[in-house]
């Protein structure tokens, strides 16, 4: 397919950074026929923001323009039929935003059943031949749409990926904005793509940030990998694809259940703009508490004899300590907050958890009463000859409960079976044991190698934990509860902020209850600001320092500061503030709460 486009010409374009390619398609139409996707692309106009230091590279661009035209032609032959003339096509810098104007064609209605979201997973390496296109599809949501609709969505996505790879082979298309839909792309694994199609409706709530949507895709995928291993490995295990389909279907559906509010899926909208998915929220510890925690970690480390156990400790929904790499920590943290912590366990009875559903406070209905998209008793489709009953569904609700000994139990992995997960960092499978004492949740990861006698060894490890660590657990819980500032502990009055540390994958934000008090205009301004920053960031790999201040319609200030991997977004709703005042506020915030990280003037 379009894989041969890893050309020197294109990569010379991408030499400056290899950033993502954002295409914005304002109107587009396609035939809707079952086999070919014929995206008519009319006029390509390019809007580019060229940093001043790239100005003097003009000659370079002219040279590569030739190569790139050739590639474009090839690509057209392969996938796209385009009526556009290539001379209207001008790209001067790699990090431009491509706006696609399809004119002549209309698109078949995608939301046959009023569904506002489509989510698909497909493998570009499969179904290369005519008639076998269905083979590509690994997952499609909603499951009840016709194959032709599924194929048309995937065909379009594939076409766009192939096309954009010409310009940016390393990171192809990220998003296509059409009039009524946004297509968000995420390449989860090489040639395995996840695409989310969201409907733009008139409601104001449907304003989102592309990165936030992408983070959703990323989160589903990494959670999936944590439990089942990579999609590719499952495909390799059973090339017919039945296995992966039978795993993906319940998993993603269970995940989407979490997003559903009432009967609708609630996607991260602009209201959640002061939040960062895919990061960990940490509890700030005093030194003595930290030492107690670390001492507990030391005990947990050695609970399975000589082999070191990893552990994760949470207090309420905040991370206290981890011995895992940031990526693994994020995955496990996400899962813990979703299903394991005391708040998650009690969510069956009380629907409210300020961290998970904070933004939709007003709309949240009790989860238990909300209809589940896939009930646990539903027969699993797409079995493809596989024993569907054996598929593990770790994201099912209300499957975890606290046992008598303080350890959490579940029958997701089968009766009396201990859950196992896959760690990316060490590439090993580990048993997951969760222990809970009041609001303290301990997740202990025991290497499978250390467990020779199955459940016997597991119960030995549990015994070790109870024997050696109980006293310390009590002490830590006591210390943390004493220092616990409640759900609004990290509220700084006068500020609404989001702090992201990309290195550690840690974020901290104003409590959502407080963010909810911001005016809609302010939130929209921050959303806009974040989008701008996302674009800027994707243009270059090197971390840079950046400061952007926007004055919103309601005279609020939206401020972003980036410095060496750390980001600070802030809303200041004091209409009387001048820019100078706003900067001073940021400065004092930075000095007081971020060790002066963002003091850059």
């Amino acid at each position: 397919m379009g894989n041969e486009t890893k050309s020197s010409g294109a990569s010379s374009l991408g030499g400056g950074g290899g950033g993502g390619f954002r295409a914005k398609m304002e109107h587009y139409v396609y035939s809707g026929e079952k086999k070919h996707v014929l995206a008519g692309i009319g006029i390509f106009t390019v809007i580019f923001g060229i940093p001043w230091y790239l100005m003097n590279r003009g000659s370079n661009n002219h040279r590569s323009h030739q190569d790139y035209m050739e590639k474009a032609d090839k690509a057209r032959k392969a996938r796209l039929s385009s009526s556009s003339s290539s001379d209207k096509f001008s790209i001067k810098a790699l990090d431009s935003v491509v706006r696609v104007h399809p004119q002549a064609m209309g698109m078949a209605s995608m939301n046959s059943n009023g569904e506002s979201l489509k989510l698909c997973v497909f493998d570009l390496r499969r179904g290369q031949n005519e008639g076998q296109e269905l083979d590509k599809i690994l997952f499609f949501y909603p499951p009840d749409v016709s194959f032709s609709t599924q194929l048309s969505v995937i065909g379009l996505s594939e076409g766009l990926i192939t096309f954009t790879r010409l310009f940016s082979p390393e990171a192809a298309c990220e998003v296509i904005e059409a009039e009524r839909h946004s297509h968000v792309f995420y390449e989860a694994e090489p040639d395995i793509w996840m695409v989310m199609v969201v409907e733009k409706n008139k409601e104001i709530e449907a304003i989102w940030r592309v990165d936030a949507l992408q983070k959703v895709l990323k989160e589903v995928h990494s959670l999936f990998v944590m439990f089942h291993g990579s999609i590719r490995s499952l495909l390799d295990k059973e090339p017919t694809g039945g296995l992966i389909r039978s795993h993906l279907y319940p998993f993603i559906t269970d995940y989407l259940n979490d997003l559903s509010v009432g009967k609708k899926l609630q996607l991260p909208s602009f209201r959640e703009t002061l939040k960062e998915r895919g990061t960990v929220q940490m509890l700030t510890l005093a030194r003595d508490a930290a030492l107690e925690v670390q001492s507990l970690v030391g005990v947990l480390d050695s609970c399975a004899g000589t082999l070191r156990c990893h552990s994760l400790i949470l207090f309420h929904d905040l991370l206290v300590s981890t011995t895992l790499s940031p990526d693994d920590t994020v995955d496990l943290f996400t899962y813990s907050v979703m299903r394991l912590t005391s708040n998650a366990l009690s969510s069956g009875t009380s629907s409210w958890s300020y961290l998970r559903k904070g933004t939709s406070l007003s709309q949240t209905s009790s989860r238990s009463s909300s209809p589940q998209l896939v009930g646990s008793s539903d027969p699993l489709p797409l079995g493809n000859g596989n024993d569907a009953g054996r598929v593990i569904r770790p994201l099912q609700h209300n499957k975890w409960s606290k046992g008598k000994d303080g350890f959490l139990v579940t029958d997701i992995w089968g009766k009396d079976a201990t859950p196992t997960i896959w760690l990316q960092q060490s590439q090993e499978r580990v048993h997951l044991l969760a222990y809970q004492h009041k609001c303290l949740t301990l997740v202990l990861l025991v290497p499978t190698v250390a467990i020779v006698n199955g459940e016997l060894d597991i119960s030995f490890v549990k015994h070790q934990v109870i024997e050696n660590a109980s006293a310390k657990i009590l002490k830590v819980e006591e210390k943390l509860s004493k220092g616990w500032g409640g759900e609004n502990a990290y509220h700084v009055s006068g500020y609404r902020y989001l702090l992201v540390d990309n290195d550690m994958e840690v974020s901290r934000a104003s409590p959502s209850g407080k963010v909810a008090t911001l005016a809609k205009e302010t939130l929209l301004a921050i959303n806009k600001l974040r989008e701008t920053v996302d674009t800027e960031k994707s243009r270059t790999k090197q971390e840079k320092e950046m400061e952007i201040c926007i004055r919103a319609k309601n005279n609020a200030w939206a401020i972003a500061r980036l410095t060496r991997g750390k980001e600070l977004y802030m809303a200041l709703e004091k209409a009387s503030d001048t820019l100078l005042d706003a900067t001073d506020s940021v400065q004092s915030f930075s000095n007081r709460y971020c060790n002066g990280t963002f003091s850059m003037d």
Partner: protein
Amino acid sequence: MKEKNSTTASTLGRILATCSKQAKDYGSCVASKVHEVEKDLCLKEFLALKNCMQHTVKIMSSRPSSSQTSVGSGALSHAYIQHPSLHCNIPESRGLFYDDANRLLICVTSSQVFSWETAPPFNPDVSPSVDSVPEGPILSVRFSLDEKVIAVQRSDCEIQFFHRETKKKLTHKCRAGSESILGFFWSDSPLCDLAVVKTSGMDLFACDSAMNLRLVETKKVNVNWYIYTHESRLVLLASGLQCKTITGFQLSTAGVVRLPKFEMTLATTESNSKPIISAGDVHLVTVYGRIYCLQVDREAMLLHTYRFYRDAVVQQGSLPIYSSKLSVSVVDNLLLVHQIDAKVVIIYDLFVDSRAPVSAPLPLLWRGYQGSDSSSQAANKENKSPESSTSNENIVMYEDAWAFLVPDLILDQTNKVLWRVHLDLEAISASSSDRTSLLEFLQRRKLEANKAKQLCLGIARALILERRPATQVTQAIDVLVTAYSYSVKAGIYKELKNEKTTATPPTDGASPDNERGRASGSSIDGEEEVEMDLPSGSSDEQQESQLSSPAISPDELYKFVFASVEETMVEESDYLVAIITEFLRSISAEKLKVDLNIYVMTVRLLARSKRFAELSLFITNKIIEPSKEVALQLLESGGQNLRVRKLGLDMLRQLSLHHEYISSLVQDGYYLEALRYAQKRKVTSVRSSLFLEAAFASNDMQHLAAILRVLSELIPGFKETSEYYTFHGLLNETSSSVAV
């Protein structure tokens, strides 16, 4: 420290190490003649090796540190008496007395009184002072507390006093017939200076400088016998048929306190329904500042303990005894119960609630020579020890004529020698398996504080090297840290290594630290851990005399335990980190400070085992306290991990170490940020060429121009420097269009 003592294997290792040459010779001899091997073929080499090994053993055993493989009876022991003893063999001696108030050993002849100082430090070579007294029978002798007056009991109704300077003489008599004098002692209570115990009670007298006695008070009690020790200032008067009703008075500096009367416990059997307690069955001991009374109950074979409080006497359990004849000594606050018939001594630590002995019953040992006690002995040990060992070969342990003097002296009345009882801490620690309680035990030792300290360090190190479970090591560390914190609070611990701490301040990272320590030549710092325990040279000895507490400061723990095991624990840094965490927790619980090198070490260990996530947790939670050294270590370890490097940079910035921060930023290629920072903070110490070269290397002429401009504003006179010309010239060459 003394690992070699705790395991026999290391003893052998030491021997072999010393005799490596001979061993090699013998080995190569055998190897070369392996085909024609026959008896005595390599005899010469073998004999050389044998001699060397025997010699080494001898040297080692002459040291107190290798007590188990000892001379003398060759048996294991935890307590020993040691040559040289104090010889008090005066011709025509009429008797030996001990004045426990002044710690004088007194030998009397018909007209003279010889007295030897025995107060610690016990010096056997002290010469006696001689006083002459008129002839006559002498029942007991005691010097007044200022040692100006000698009081001599002549009979059961007469005591004579002689002033040593004025030669004044005074005779005190009691009513003959109706009462008799049981004894007397001097007191330092403000009320009285002298107490005379008679069968009818106790008379307290004041004595002025002119030696006039004035009766102050009389305590009427029927007394069968009494005991008194000066260290407790307590006199117990026994009355009743079985002598088990005890009236006690404490003649302390606060006045005379009457203790409540109490009855001793006595078991009765059919054969002996009314056993009688004699004075020899009751002992007063003072340990850890508490006063105990020990009473032998022969029928029950128990030693009852009573503790004296101001207003109460409380029985505190009983110790089993294995001998009808019994005596006690107190060494370094430990109770030594001599089971004389069984010829063993059992050591108890009354500090702990349990009445279990510290160690198994073992005989008291006679030991020929102790090396580390005084340097003069060390000098003549070669010629002295053989001679004295022959002279003392007729020692019989626990002879009938032995008298046990308060607190820790043994007087052999047959041989007329006086010994001091010593404890062998190494042997005790070697025989104890519970390291935590052993450490507690050692931390309570005052007498041989340095030895106890070194043993503690050795135990701590061994625990880690043996990879004991972290909980065990934690307990041990807690013990040491709490003991230190306690002794600091109590003011016992003195920072005695002033000159050393100034010699090794962690100013510029670790390496110069080391060198300086070596250069200063002070024994502890300079020599590596193997040598630390050797009683080599004078500095060690000084230390021993200075050291009043075995408490180990966190810095020393770091230096002698953690730093010294780091090398060997490379493979197990996880374990070591866990231990260090516990150490830090323990220290922070006691609100103590520690050498920041331990933080540097923690960073190094975490980075080595690639635990970067935890490392950043340690930093953000301030478990590792920020410092320049830590920051530099982070930068160094950050070579493998950018995040770690950033942590180091952040730390530099937070510590306002502008120069280092800017240099590191430039090094990472962030020269613009660095320059901006320099401009803001007005830092001019960073070489300007750093920025210029970085910008030039990035081939960005605009940046170069900007930097030149900023620098010429920042540094006065920059435009005159050669750098400015060089780069300005370069700039003009490359692009004439860019204006500066």
